[in-house]
């Protein structure tokens, strides 16, 4: 086993892309492919990483350390963090189309692609576009790693998007998992298999390690890094499509029926019928003095037109600028309306039918708003106007935040395990702002009141999670949070009738590792410990 292409960084702390927290770690290993310039050795590179990662896992286990695979570090939460070692996969970027010889009958190989673990969402966009294909849906940025995006439930909207629904995970058809120093498996749903034995042979995976299991697959999709190292991801793509984006200011209250029941009567959809909507989004700026312009509505529909093309900004906010704003506005609250209004004017101007691919419409490759904080709360859309009313009422001291409403189809039935898109019509209600202790307190106050008013909610795994006050570097003005995501609360909010989805998730994990608790502990982290997801 050669470890020559692993580079161990001599660092003892790590911060995520948005600089929300600083995590003490034991080190970061950068993983590199051996032949980055030799196109004829892409498969060799893909395959050779497996025993090397397994060797590294053994090495770290011998040290009694924990570790987890690291993507782009885009999560606001500590889901990607560890107190042990991070295995940085960002340089592992090979990808492969599938041939007809590798798929089971009835599967179109032209729509299926295998991506090595380091591919970012942007890399995937570019790779698929070169074949005239596209992801069915993605988030509003594309700098995240593909794996980090889907394991945390990152979503777009895509009411009518096929083949998935609204979350990136819905396009995943198979996972190549490294689960121990001696075992790699191919995991896919039994109800929708894609690959055959010939494909497994090419990846040097034993037939016995071909797992077809619906519950295990859907648990691993939102695996939070706890299901081993995902070395490869099989995606089902769609034909490349263009989106027509139409954005305009509106009166927020005039959108009440649209955001609570998809009743678009009287709502300007830019000439589109409600059935044509691919994406519908509302942002609300409560500091706007003109109530008829307080909301920003974004409508996207699929189109065959490519012009006029949308302008793609290269770089979003400057580093720590958001935190600076938070501190300034925290000291002088009277400045908040001006700052937030300027932010909206600069970042969300009207757009009059501009065309672009999914990658063009969601362009940010670099991290958006370092120093910012975003709490994404999934709820039944019928409750989102009430949630907004709570937030508006509690924001009586010029707290510099704004509110966003995105709508995602439900991850259905037993597929949802820990998917937060679990309501029949899920509204992902976001409270976004400039990171500071006061904003965290405000978010917590809102959550307390939403819970008091019986609004059922779950949380985006990759956004701020109200676990305790140590989840960010911003501090907290009180000794503890009032609304805390505890193991008991997690179980409660993911309960479906008699089905305890947290128990299902844990049982599937135990099954994957064959009951090897040492191996399971190796891939656990502090966040899993605090949420009762560890063994």
């Amino acid at each position: 086993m050669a470890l020559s292409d692993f580079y161990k960084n001599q660092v003892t702390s790590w911060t995520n892309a948005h600089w929300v927290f600083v995590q003490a770690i034991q080190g970061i290993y950068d993983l590199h492919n051996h032949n980055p310039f030799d196109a004829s050795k892409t498969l060799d590179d893909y395959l050779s990483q497996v025993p090397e990662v397994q060797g590294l896992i053994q090495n770290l286990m011998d040290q009694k350390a924990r570790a987890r695979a690291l993507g782009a570090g885009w999560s606001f939460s500590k889901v990607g963090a560890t107190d042990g070692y991070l295995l940085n996969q960002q340089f592992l970027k090979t990808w492969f189309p599938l041939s007809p010889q590798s798929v089971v009958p009835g599967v179109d190989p032209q729509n299926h692609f295998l991506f090595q673990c380091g591919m970012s969402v942007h890399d995937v966009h570019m790779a698929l576009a070169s074949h005239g294909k596209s992801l069915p849906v993605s988030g509003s940025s594309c700098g995240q790693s593909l794996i980090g995006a889907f394991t945390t439930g990152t979503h777009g909207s895509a009411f009518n998007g096929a083949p998935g629904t609204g979350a990136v995970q819905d396009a995943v058809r198979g996972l190549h998992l490294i689960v121990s120093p001696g075992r790699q498996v191919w995991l896919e749903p039994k109800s929708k298999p894609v690959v055959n034995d010939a494909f497994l042979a090419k990846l040097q995976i034993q037939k016995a390690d071909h797992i077809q299991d619906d519950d295990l697959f859907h648990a691993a999709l939102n695996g939070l890094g706890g299901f081993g190292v995902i070395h490869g991801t099989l995606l089902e793509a769609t034909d490349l499509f263009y989106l027509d984006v139409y954005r305009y200011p509106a009166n927020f209250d005039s959108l009440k029926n649209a955001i609570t029941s998809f009743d678009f009567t009287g709502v300007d959809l830019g000439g589109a019928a409600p059935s044509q909507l691919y994406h519908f989004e509302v942002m609300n700026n409560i500091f706007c003095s003109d109530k008829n312009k307080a909301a920003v509505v974004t409508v996207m529909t699929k189109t065959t037109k490519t012009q006029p093309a949308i302008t793609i900004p290269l770089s979003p906010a400057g580093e720590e600028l958001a935190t600076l704003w938070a501190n300034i506005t925290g000291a002088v609250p009277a400045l908040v309306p001006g700052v937030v209004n300027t932010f909206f004017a600069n970042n969300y101007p009207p757009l009059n039918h501009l065309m672009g691919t999914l990658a063009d419409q969601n362009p940010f490759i670099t991290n958006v708003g370092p120093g910012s904080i975003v709490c994404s709360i999934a709820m039944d859309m019928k409750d989102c106007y009430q949630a907004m009313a709570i937030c508006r009422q509690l924001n009586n001291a010029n707290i510099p935040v704004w509110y966003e409403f995105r709508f995602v189809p439900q991850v259905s039935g037993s597929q949802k395990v820990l998917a937060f898109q679990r309501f029949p019509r899920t509204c992902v209600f976001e409270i976004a702002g400039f990171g500071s202790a006061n904003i965290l307190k405000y978010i917590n106050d809102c959550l307390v009141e939403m819970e008091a008013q019986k609004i059922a909610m779950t949380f985006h795994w990759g956004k701020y999670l109200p676990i305790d006050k140590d989840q960010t570097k911003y501090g907290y003005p009180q000794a503890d949070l009032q609304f805390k995501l505890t193991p008991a609360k997690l179980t409660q909010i993911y309960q479906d009738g008699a089905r305890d989805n947290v128990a299902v998730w844990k049982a599937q994990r135990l099954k994957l590792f064959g009951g090897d608790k040492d191996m399971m502990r190796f891939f656990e982290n502090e966040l899993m410990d605090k949420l009762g997801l560890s063994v």
Partner: protein
Amino acid sequence: MRILSRKILPFLILSSFLLTSCASFETHVPVSNNNDGSNNATPATGWEGNVTVCSFLWGAIPGDPAIVNMKTECGVHDVKITRDFWQGLCSILTLGAVSPMTVQWKLGSAPSREGPPL
């Protein structure tokens, strides 16, 4: 007033020098890979390096950190230069002749490569 100023002035200058030298600082030097000064490569996660670099003779001989994990396909995305208290003190004791600093960097991401159909 003039006498007072003459007495205080050297003290003020020395104090300012000491404070400025001792102060820890951190500065970022984003690296461009586009003509417009932007960088559209994804930065690698985590700062690498942590290399102490000295410049000598008031910057006449600049330090030159060797980037040990450099993969030519990646490029450098971002450079961070920091000076802590002790490094600042070293600068003071040598009257600036030796100025140690810590340099860290982030590599850019590798390009993706398409392999043969599997």
